[in-house]
């Protein structure tokens, strides 16, 4: 087990935040769930796979998606007549 968060004498709240952060980081690190993972950090294929994917994720998002969602919201979902 790798220790990503080191307690540097902070209070409980700080520690909790650290733990939550650690959990989020773990979720954000695909393929790094376990040491025996065949696509883990020691795997060349796993590394390239993430590099390939990260490059796609970081591409600029076409504005059409934001526009589409705004439009959908403006139209309001059909069938939601229940508003109080």
């Amino acid at each position: 087990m790798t220790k990503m968060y080191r307690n540097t004498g902070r209070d409980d709240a700080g520690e909790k935040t650290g733990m939550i952060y650690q959990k989020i980081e773990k979720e954000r690190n695909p393929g790094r769930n376990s040491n025996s993972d065949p696509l883990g950090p020691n795997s060349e294929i796993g590394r390239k796979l993430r590099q390939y994917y990260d490059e796609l994720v970081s591409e600029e998002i076409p504005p059409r998606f934001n526009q589409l969602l705004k439009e959908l919201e403006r139209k309001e979902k059909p069938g939601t007549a229940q508003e109080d």
Partner: protein
Amino acid sequence: MPATENFRDGLLAAVPTLRAFAVSLAKNTDRADDLVQETLVKAWDKQDSFQPGTNLKAWLFTILRNEFYSQMRKRRREVEDSDGSITARLSVHPSQDGSSDLTDFRKALALLPEDQREAIILIGASGFSYEEAAEICGCAVGTIKSRVSRARARLQEILSVDGQSDFGPDAISTQVTNSALVA
């Protein structure tokens, strides 16, 4: 209602990773963007069926994946009726810029069958657990595991072969050309 706003923000935040998954499936940016668009519209229409607090990303990936396969089935039917020009157009790989290191990888990835490609992407890049990936693909966890391991083995095979020699038609065509020159 602010819930809709949150839902919209959730969708918007998921667009980059949805897009990456769509490009990986469709191997074509234009088609991928259409898939993402269709996914957002579908997700919006059935947002009531989404359980708040559950995994929105997994839910969206499931919608996108279903959309991809239903489009593919439709296209296959169309191709059967035509001269195959659609197939030819679809197999064109997008000319993305990026490191040449990744160009080989992209090509290798594109050679994998869809089921293996999606499995290795979901597990190795999108950050899903085997259980989540199985749910997204509507199959058993063991099936995902075996697809991932086959995909990995195949990628390793393709990439190492590619690194050692310039395979492909060139070696043969050179021989043919040479012997033709000699004769």
